[in-house]
């Protein structure tokens, strides 16, 4: 276990393992997403209340999960950077931030499009939409802080501190928004009231798209981390060796081939 963690902390190891994992990940993710989306759009029975509009759920819920998951991953990496000084943790944290921000945006867009027929308006100060908007601001803040600080080490640690501060604050923010929402208007969130009235089959495509989203997340994570590794390690011998052999060339440029 520790050996494995130690290896994961090595950029070179991460890079090569990433290349080995990517083709499988591409295949599995593509399959999951295609099956999930076709099933969800075409084969799932319509919701007894919302008709076909509920089909947005197959993207909305996984996007919300990705939003949460990305932030927890960033927080974990931040702790690993600050406590064990693992450089790889910062590379991953940096790679995850834009993916998490975009997932939050997807969650917001799908939520508000879902809201138009349900609420009659595209935006509503619903507890979950509002706290997702705040979560989006926090992602943006972390990205902005990183781009503002020139020194890479300082930027890494500063972002790690901010991420952990955010980790402590997010439950408080969510609780306060929840309270605020019930004060100003009765609970009117998108949560599936009476979802028991629907057959359980309605959830099957969500499993496919859910795991598809996780796969997509890791594809993005690996691609972005590998870029950062190449940039940071550009003077090291293994990068030179990698780029000077022809086999490796195809490997690095596509990120798809495995004949390394």
């Amino acid at each position, binding site marked *: 276990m520790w050996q494995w963690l130690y290896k994961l902390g090595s950029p070179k190891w991460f890079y090569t393992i990433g290349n080995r994992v990517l083709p499988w990940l591409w295949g599995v993710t593509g399959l999951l997403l295609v099956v999930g989306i076709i099933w969800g759009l075409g084969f799932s029975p319509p919701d007894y209340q919302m008709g076909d509009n509920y089909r947005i759920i197959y993207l909305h819920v996984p996007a919300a999960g990705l939003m949460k998951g990305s932030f927890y991953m960033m927080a974990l990496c931040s702790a690993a950077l600050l406590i064990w000084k693992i450089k790889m943790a910062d590379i991953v944290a940096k790679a995850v931030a834009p993916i998490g921000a975009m997932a939050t945006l997807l969650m917001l867009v799908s939520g508000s499009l879902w809201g138009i027929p349900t609420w009659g308006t595209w935006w509503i100060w619903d507890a979950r939409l509002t706290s997702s908007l705040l979560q989006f601001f926090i992602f943006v803040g972390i990205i902005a802080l990183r781009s503002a600080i020139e020194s890479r080490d300082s930027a890494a640690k500063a972002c790690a*501190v901010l991420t952990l*501060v955010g980790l*402590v604050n997010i439950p408080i923010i969510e609780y306060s*928004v929840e309270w605020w929402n019930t*004060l100003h208007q009765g609970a009117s969130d998108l949560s599936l009231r009476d979802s028991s009235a629907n057959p359980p089959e309605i959830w099957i495509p969500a499993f496919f798209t859910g795991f598809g989203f996780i796969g997509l997340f890791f594809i993005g994570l690996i691609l972005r981390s590998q870029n950062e590794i190449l940039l940071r390690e550009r003077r090291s011998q293994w990068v030179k060796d990698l780029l000077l052999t022809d086999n490796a060339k195809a490997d690095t440029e596509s990120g798809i081939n495995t004949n390394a």
Partner: protein
Amino acid sequence: MNTDMNKASSELGLLSVMGATVRREMLLAFRNPGDVINPLMFFVIAVTLFPLSVGTDENFLSAIAPGVIWVTALLAVMLSMDSLFRADFEDGNLEQLLMSPQPLYFLLLAKIFSHWLVACLPIILLAPVLASMLFMSPEGMLPLVLSLLLGTPVLTLLGGIGMALTVGLSRSGLLLAVLILPLYVPVLVFGTGVVQAAINGTAFSGLLALLAALFALAVSLSPLAISAALKISIN
């Protein structure tokens, strides 16, 4: 010799060192009154802008008064944060602070407490005046002051984290806003909640207790984050 010095300074006692820090900050604020006046003036001017933009209808103004006072006070506190570490960073005092043998945690608390005295207390004292200029109903006045008394220290502590992260940057004003405004949301929600509840005639002590809990959490945790952030920025 080093141990002698440590011994000597620890004999000074934590409280007296904190007291000395507060005295020093007060003296600095006294010599540079802009640190006191500017946040206050911002608060007054910004509140004045609201009737000028939304009209002087008494009912409408009294309805938005708690929110206007709280949001403007929050922005004033945030804009005042720059004077917390900036000058000390530029003249090297911050480095001295980090190297001091005294526990950084308490030194930072003393520093933030003095900043709160200088920048926030005048705002809190003036808030009822501005609130009544916005026709806020008198039942809300005491809760407004109480909520600000509990809330502004939290804003100062959280702002201190943002400031400590960005103090090494030459232009950090807008970045600071982007970093810490989302974190200010709970204080704003519960702070205005207290005032609204009082005006509506419902119980607000529970909300004050929530604000107090946020205060306790911020006092105990944010100095840790601030000291970590300062060490990163000083490097």
